[in-house]
């Protein structure tokens, strides 16, 4: 699964994109976030306040928890600030 980070989330994590193999027990978005937070302090930090993190799965905005079944791309980013 491809994970994308934008703006300050990208700066903190230090990369814009990574491809990961999900553990079997990670099947929903919240489980993914919880699992990502175990991967180091930068991940811990970007997901501290989920009010300032937006999510898109396969390029569609998501609010709330949802299954990751069939998803190939999950993106995390701050609220957009437009043009």
């Amino acid at each position: 699964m491809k994970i994308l980070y934008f703006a300050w989330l990208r700066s903190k994590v230090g990369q814009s994109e990574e491809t990961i193999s999900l553990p079997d027990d990670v099947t929903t978005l919240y489980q993914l976030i919880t699992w990502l937070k175990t991967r180091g302090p930068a991940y811990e930090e970007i997901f501290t306040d989920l009010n300032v993190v937006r999510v898109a799965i396969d390029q569609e905005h998501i609010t709330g928890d949802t299954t990751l079944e069939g998803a190939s791309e999950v993106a995390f980013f701050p609220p957009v600030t437009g043009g």
Partner: protein
Amino acid sequence: MVIVQAEIFDTGAEIARITASRTDIGAVVTFTGLVRDFNDSADVQSLTLEHYPGMTERELEKIEASARVKWDLQDCLIIHRFGKMELAEPIVLVITASKHRHDAFEAAAFLMDWLKTKAPFWKLEADTEGNTDWVKERSSDQEALKRWQD
């Protein structure tokens, strides 16, 4: 039409392209957004816009389609730049062409309110001393968008 590009665009050339050899357009409204010298930071020197390639185009195409449903438009163009932009450079262009001025005005204002709040772009401002800062979401922009909700 939606174009997401790094290059500078020319508003006049785009108007000419839209109106060329058409006699059914009565009103053309354009909105051009420019980099100006103060925003969140005291003295902005340049702006870098990060976007989400693929998703950005999809989202802009969806909102263009909405505008064409809501208003009677002969044509509609959105150009949005990404990457680094210097002071006074254009960032975003919306052109709406209609038989009637109200459709053109309303659609352009709607598209801009949406672009300012919903389009997958993130602004990084740099000041004269080279300090950079990610721009915060503005509640006034969110308020602006509310007036279009049914």
